[in-house]
Each structure stands twice: as C-alpha cells, then as structure tokens.
C-alpha cells in the first residue's frame, strides 16, 4: 500500500463491520485518523457504502484500493508493484479451400477438405517497470511444425508425434508444437515526439501490419503483400517513433533500422535495412488515417563448407544468392458513422546481384527468380449495422513483372460478414475467389483458388 491516507479513508467505511465482529477497538482509532485527514474525509462522505457490512463490501473496498494503487503507479506517483498485464486473443474456425484438382496450388495447401482449424493463440505480457518505460512480449502458440509440408524436391511432411514418456502407461503420444515470438521489445519514452524501442517488432507499415490481430482486422483474408512479405512483417533492430498533436489531428512518424530480411536469426551482412512511416490521423467523430511507408534493404544467403585442402582446417563461405530490395506504399483508413474503408497500395522491387539469384519455393527444377516488380492494391468497404453486424466487400489486385509461373495478374474479389457479439467475442466469415491471368501470353489453367473461412475470435 503506497498511500496510507487512502487506506485509512477506505477503512473508515468499516465501523459497522467492526461493531458487528465485536472488535470495536481498532476501528475508532482508524476513524480518528481519517477524520484528521481531509482527503479521507471526502472519501468517507462520498463513498461510504450503505447497508450492513459484508464480505462483498470488503471485496469492494479491496478493489478500490487496488484501483487507486494502480492509478498512482500509472501516474508515476508511486513505485509500481511488480506486475505483468496478461491479455491476448485466440481464434478457431472452419474452412474449406476449393482448388482445382492437380493444379500447382495443391502444393501450397495441405488439404482441399473442409476442416476445423486452430488459428492464433496469442498471449501478451505487458510490463511498465517505471514511468516512461515499457516492455511488451507477444507470443503465438501454434501446433506447428507438426503437419507442415514442403517439396525439397520431394514431398515431405513434418511429424512431431512422440511417445509421452511421462505417461504412466507409456504409450500415450503427444504432438509437440511451437511458439512464435510476434514481438518482444522494450522502449523508453522521452516525450510525445520521441520513443525509442529495441527488439523484435511488427514492421510499422500500412494498415494491416499495424492492426495485426484477428480481433482488429476486418477481413480474414490477408492481402498478398502481407502473405508474401513485400516488407518483412517482423524485424529485429531499433525503432523510433512519435507524434505531434494539433487538437484532433496528429502527425506521426516511425523510423527503424534493422537486420532486415534474414535467413537466420542474425544478419549475414553488415548492410542494415531502413524503414520509415509517416501518417496523419484525425480522431474526431469521423476518424481517418492517411499514411505512407517505405523500406530499403538487402538480403542474402551463404553456405559454409569445411576445407582441409591446404593441409589446415578452414571454412569456405559461398554466397548462394543476394539481392537489394525496396518497397513503397500508401494507405488510407476511414471510419465514418458505420462505414469503414481500408485501402493500401504497395510497390516492391527486387534486384539480384549478378549471378546470385535464388530458386523459387515452388517451381520448375533449375528455375531461378528474376529481378522483378510487384504491384499490390486492395480496397475494403464495410458497413456496421446495429453495432453488431458488419458485411463487407474486399477486392485485391496483384501485378507481377515479369510474369511468374502462375501468371502475372491476380484478381481476388471477396465478400465477408462479421458479427460482434461483444467486444471480446466475434464471428468472422469470408468467401473469396482468386483468379490468375497471364496478360502477356496464354492464361494458366487449373489455377484458381476459392475459399470459405470462418473464425470465432475471443479476446481475453
């Protein structure tokens, strides 16, 4: 308890309780202290609950004590207790992908059957060790790598099923999963205009990667630039951000220096990636944000080989592939009455170093990825009715230059419907269809994707 005055005041609610319990002695003395303290006198006058004493009243008083302590700690007026705020979200649902049998996209998705899925199980650990300081860790618990597939070059599926040696009968099996770190950073805020953050953070670009979680995003379907990580979705490095407030308007920025896109948990080169975002936000009855984001970086992969050829032990490094990349995007989000508009456009450029191109994840043997541009756009318009029901239409385009093995243009129209039961419970359903075209030659056959997905989303 950091504030004895408030404690005394709150305890002054209790004369009836003391009387009822036959312990009158301590309470009058506390009440006398309270009478000498103006602030506690106010508390007594204003807040003394009526009625007989009960454990409910004690609980209420204890709750108020906690509130006051938390508020004082928040305000920097008292040393905060060692506490971690725990919160998060999870989603579970049903989905079906309608793929052309025998088409190349069958290699990307594990099943064409209707299946229940466990989506995100994300837990946040939020601490404020002192005024201006904060750490935030967000972990996602997954069932992966169990069941994940690859073609390298032959089909493989990961099976993490093992015997549970702690099981008394010894024959039970468990499939172990993994933990994905979505973010893990610490930050210090100098002022409204400058906060410095270090660690792993979601790249602050556009709308999608900032909104980040199923409870916040309107659409279940991720835009192609998000799936393909035209800008890496998570980065390790340092990040400065801040804003300047002018009434209902604020002008904000993000600047980050990171390892960029890496094949390992560390950077294989001394080149660092640079990114930035600038946004203007209006937070009136109508809310809108307009922003622009950019990213510049390099990426590469090396192999190493033991070398005994010179008679002494050595390691030879070989550059497998390397490229420079940049991306630039603009975004707009508007909330006007029940209408919600989201739209983003992004251009991504990849240019390989001479003779250092890499292979596609899924493509003909011996093929390599070319220098390329990718243009992305999506628009989403939603209308919330009766504060609970939210139908929306979503349209997405992607144009690649030059053409890749499934065409150069992808068009994805989609319809969705969200139900907001409560702020902590939603049901999201979406139907989408993606069409692949080759604007410079014959259109690819057997390459369409239709999907129906739903997610029940819980926030805790």
């Amino acid at each position, binding site marked *: 308890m950091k504030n004895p005055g*408030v404690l005394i005041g709150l305890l002054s609610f209790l004369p009836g309780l003391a009387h009822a319990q036959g312990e009158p002695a301590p309470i009058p003395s506390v009440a006398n202290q309270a009478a000498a303290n103006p602030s506690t006198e106010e508390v007594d006058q204003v807040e003394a609950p009526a009625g007989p004493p009960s454990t409910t009243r004690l609980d209420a008083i204890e709750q108020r004590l906690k509130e*006051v302590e938390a508020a004082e700690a*928040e305000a920097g*007026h008292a040393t905060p207790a060692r506490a971690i705020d725990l919160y998060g979200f999870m989603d579970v649902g049903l989905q079906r992908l309608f793929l052309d049998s025998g088409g190349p996209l069958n290699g990307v998705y594990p099943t064409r059957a209707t299946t229940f899925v466990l989506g995100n199980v994300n837990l946040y650990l939020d601490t404020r060790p002192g005024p201006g300081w904060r750490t935030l860790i967000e972990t996602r618990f997954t069932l992966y790598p169990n069941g994940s597939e690859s073609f390298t070059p032959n089909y493989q599926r990961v099976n993490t099923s093992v015997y549970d040696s702690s099981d008394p009968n010894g024959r039970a099996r468990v499939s172990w999963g993994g933990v994905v770190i979505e*973010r893990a950073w610490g930050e210090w805020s100098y002022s409204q205009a400058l906060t410095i953050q270090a660690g792993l953070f*979601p790249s602050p670009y556009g709308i999608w990667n900032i909104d980040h979680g199923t409870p916040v995003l309107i659409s279940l379907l991720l835009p192609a630039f998000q799936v393909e990580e035209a800008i890496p979705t998570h980065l390790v490095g340092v990040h400065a951000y801040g804003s300047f407030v002018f*009434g209902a308007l604020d002008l904000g920025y993000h600047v980050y220096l990171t390892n960029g896109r890496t094949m390992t948990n560390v950077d294989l080169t001394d080149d660092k990636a640079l990114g930035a975002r600038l946004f203007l936000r209006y937070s009136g009855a109508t809310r809108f944000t307009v922003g622009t984001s950019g990213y510049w970086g390099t990426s590469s992969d090396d192999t190493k080989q033991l070398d005994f050829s010179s008679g002494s032990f050595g390691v030879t490094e070989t550059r497998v592939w390397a490229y420079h990349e940049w991306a630039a995007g603009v975004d707009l989000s508007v909330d006007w009455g029940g209408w919600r508009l989201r739209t983003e456009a992004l251009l991504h450029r990849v240019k390989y170093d001479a003779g250092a191109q890499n292979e596609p994840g899924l493509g003909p043997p011996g093929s390599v990825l070319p220098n390329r541009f990718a243009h992305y756009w999506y628009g989403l318009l939603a209308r919330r009715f009766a504060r609970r029901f939210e139908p929306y239409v979503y349209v997405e385009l992607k144009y690649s230059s030059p053409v890749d093995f499934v065409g150069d243009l992808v068009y994805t129209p989609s319809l969705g419907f969200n139900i907001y039961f409560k702020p902590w419970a939603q049901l999201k359903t979406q139907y989408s269809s993606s069409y692949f075209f080759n604007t410079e030659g014959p259109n690819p056959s057997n390459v369409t994707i239709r999907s129906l997905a739903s997610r029940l989303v819980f*926030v805790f």
Partner: protein
Amino acid sequence: MWSGVFGIVAMLGCLLSHPSGAEEPADLVVIVHPSSPVRVLSANDLRAVFTRVLRDWPDRTPVSAINFAPSVPERAVFDRVVLGMDPDDVAQFWVDQMIRGDSPPPRQLSSAAAIVDLVSRTPGAIGYIPESKLKLRVKVVARIRRGQVVMP
C-alpha cells in the same frame, strides 16, 4: 415462412442487444492538477487525452488520465459526449489498441473522491467528476453540461 424468419431475426437481435439502463444526466467537471499549465481543454483535446493520442502536456509532463470505471453512470455520459462512443464501442476501441500493442486504457477508479485525491496529488493527472463533488484542490479545465463540452 417469412414470419418465422423475422421471428428468428428478432430473437437474435434481442440476444445481441445489451440492456439499456436509464442514463442519469450529470454535469461533469474535468479537473487537472493545480500546477498544470493547461487552462482550457476543448472536446478534441479531451478526446486526444482520453484515447491516449496526447501523451504529454505542453510542459512535457506525462499525461495521466484517470477514468471512471464502466459501471459508474458518469462514465457513460463522458464517453458519449467526449468520445462519441457507447460503452461497447469504447471497450472495442481499447481491445483494438491493446492487440496493436499500443497503450492500454487509462486507469479506472470508481470513486469521485479518489479521483479528486489522485489528481490533486499528481502533476500531469487529469480526471472528471460530477460537478457536485468538486473540491478546491484541483483546477477545472472544462465542463460537460447538457451533453456538450463547454468552457470552465
């Protein structure tokens, strides 16, 4: 058949709607620490403060907004007049902020006296209370009367 459909829709609407209790009109005063350089706050300023868009006062003192708990009637009035949101909208707004990794909502107290006490002792603190509970140890920077933010 259509009457059955309408019946189901009506039932769903009833299930999803929340009980709307009678909201008592209340005149509120927005209070800050006496040493605060702020003299007047507009509705836009208050919205920026209580949505944590504004994090520093002009003298760089960190803003410490203190809210009423959702169960307190004055909270609903404040949210509707200042933020333009109903209780579920406000709850959704803070869910979104926390999932994004932004600041959590302002701390909440259920006692006007505790808000006065905390604001009077904490530079940078701001809260609101019913006008009838106003004490001399704090400075008034705005009033909420008949559903509007007005000068102090």
